[in-house]
């Protein structure tokens, strides 16, 4: 599809409402924000913002990271990679550099999916391009941060992530907002390409605020023996968030794992799903979610596995924990099979903290509050598999930190 055709399609979809989630009035948010100059190092980033970076799992020193990318509002202010075999730059720069990149744009996600995809195409403000070269295996993660510091801003990013054949790529992504921002809109397109025998792990922390509307659109195309692992953590309130990342396991034995940990508080409204389309023979997927809803939070937790090839296997596990009578959790697992040689399953459960668990812990000496906190922590504690050791520890640390803040 030519650029002209893409734009035409986007124009047609400009007002097309999304299938799920509240309709967001995009025009309330401005694209006319200030441009920020590039930094020589992450350290130059204003001190007042550093905590917001940390809260989203971003290490301002860049230590223990293979590279760092930082976008402030609509400007890319830092982008640097330390290791050979990895590429990291703004999508805009990557488009200028590589003609072939147009073969990856809007290939996993249709540009006319809804008004949000269309708006990103028509009014894009960068986003990141990350690529690991064939055979490259850097176990240290690349970090990418999309940061909002201005009121009423509309951040429209388009991210492209490519792991070439037999390469390994680990990414920590943090989306954060400065605490003084009252309202903003984040539209993020992320297209992932996992080539033959490659592996991507993608750990994303959302650290939004009560006035932020968020509509990410993500999809992954996974080839033969490719592995994609997503860990998603959301602990802070958000005005409204809807996303339904979809992994297309097109290759033989392709694998996709989604793990989502959500602590929904305040007036948060979330519609969060993960979908796997198993098209390659023997491909597998696992979708795990843990949702805690407190205060007036409303959460829809979706999972969807579509089996379209022989010997595929998919499992969904959704668990919800209710901490308030004013909160709401809808758990919606879906399975679709189109042939007989396959195995799809789901389990879903929503409940409250069991009194007998609290008493058991109290019988070991904890107060009621301590016991409750141990149970919540345990509930959200999903063992993350598939990450390199250091990254697994780091992720655990990020998880603990985000949990510290809410409890």
């Amino acid at each position: 599809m030519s650029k002209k055709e893409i734009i035409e399609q986007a124009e047609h979809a400009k007002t097309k409402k999304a299938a799920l989630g509240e309709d967001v009035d995009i025009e309330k948010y401005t694209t006319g924000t200030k441009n920020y100059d590039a930094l020589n190092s992450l350290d130059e980033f204003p001190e007042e913002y550093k905590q917001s970076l940390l809260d989203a799992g971003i290490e301002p020193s860049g230590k223990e990271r293979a590279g760092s990318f930082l976008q402030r509002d609509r400007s890319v202010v830092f982008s640097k990679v330390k290791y050979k075999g990895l590429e990291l730059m703004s999508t805009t720069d990557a488009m200028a550099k590589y003609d072939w990149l147009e073969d990856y744009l809007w290939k996993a996600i249709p540009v006319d999916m809804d008004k949000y995809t269309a708006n990103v195409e028509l009014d894009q403000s960068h986003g990141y391009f990350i690529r690991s070269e064939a055979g490259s295996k850097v176990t240290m993660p690349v970090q990418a941060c999309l940061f909002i510091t201005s009121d009423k801003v509309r951040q429209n990013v388009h991210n492209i992530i490519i792991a070439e054949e037999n390469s390994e790529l680990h990414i920590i992504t943090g989306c954060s907002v400065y605490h003084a921002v009252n309202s903003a809109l984040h539209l993020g397109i992320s297209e992932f390409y996992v080539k033959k025998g490659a592996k991507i792990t993608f750990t994303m922390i959302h650290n939004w605020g009560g006035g932020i509307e968020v509509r990410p659109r993500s999809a992954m195309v996974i080839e033969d023996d490719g592995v994609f692992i997503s860990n998603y953590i959301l602990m802070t309130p958000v005005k409204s968030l809807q996303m339904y990342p979809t992994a297309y396991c097109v290759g033989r034995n392709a694998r996709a794992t989604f793990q989502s940990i959500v602590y929904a508080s305040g007036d948060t409204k979330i519609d969060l799903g993960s979908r796997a389309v198993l098209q390659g023979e023997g491909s597998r997927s696992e979708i795990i979610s843990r949702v805690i809803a407190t205060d007036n939070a409303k959460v829809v937790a979706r999972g969807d596995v579509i089996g379209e090839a022989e010997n595929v296997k998919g499992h969904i596990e959704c668990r919800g924990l209710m901490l308030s009578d004013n909160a709401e959790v809808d758990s919606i697992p879906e399975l679709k099979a189109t042939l007989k040689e396959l195995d799809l399953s789901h389990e879903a459960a929503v409940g409250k903290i069991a009194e007998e668990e609290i008493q058991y812990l109290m019988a070991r000496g904890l107060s009621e509050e301590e016991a409750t906190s141990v149970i919540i922590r345990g509930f959200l504690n999903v063992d993350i598999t598939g990450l390199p050791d250091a990254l697994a520890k780091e992720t655990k640390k990020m998880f603990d930190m985000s949990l510290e803040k809410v409890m």
Partner: protein
Amino acid sequence: MLEIKDLTVEVEGKEIIRDLNLNIERGAVHVLFGPNGCGKTTLLMAILGFPNYKVKKGSITFRGVDITDLPTNERVKLGMGMSFQHPPEIRGVKLGDMVNIARGRKEEKIDEDVIELGKRLNISVDFLNRDVNLGFSGGEVKRSEILQMLAQSPEFIMLDEPDSGVDVENIELIGDIINELMDRNKMPSKRERAGLIITHLGFILRYINADRAHVMLDGRIACTGMLDEVTKHVMEEGFERCVELCGGKGV
């Protein structure tokens, strides 16, 4: 160490224990026999202060403190511990975490100390890393409970059916550790700790030496005596007959 006076306990509005008296001295281990449903577990839960077990009348004094209205964790702080018969599963909380909690430690690591304690009960590192009670076999539950008691090291320990479901290989091991936890290896005058053991079958008593035994019937202690005597009657004649032989007066 533990003094229970005229205790009446209700569970969900139903009276389970009536006017019960029991006195356990420092250094003593008592055994509680009784048929299913006679109120043995209810008594332990009431001593531990679980909120569903409502004390309607009477008092419980522990180490000189009236604990009748104290929350469970305060009683535990005073030195009380309990090994449960059917403990709940807690997802995401590992047995190793429970050991740390029982030891009163905040840290989350399953470190060498925890691993060493585990070894004493044939508990591997993999076992320590399993979610507590989730998919545990009957015998694994008992070992896990005794491990937590070992970690907590309470001065007064209550054991609810510590032998049910335990394989032959491990029962002796569990018996040894219980003896240690209750100071049974020390000279009688040196014993500081006390205990109360519920057992339906009396199997564990081959490995633990206790002092006194009680037979509980219908929410009351119906018979009390030296362990050997009471055990003999219970095993040979059954509970009701044992009470008759005791005189059936209650205590």
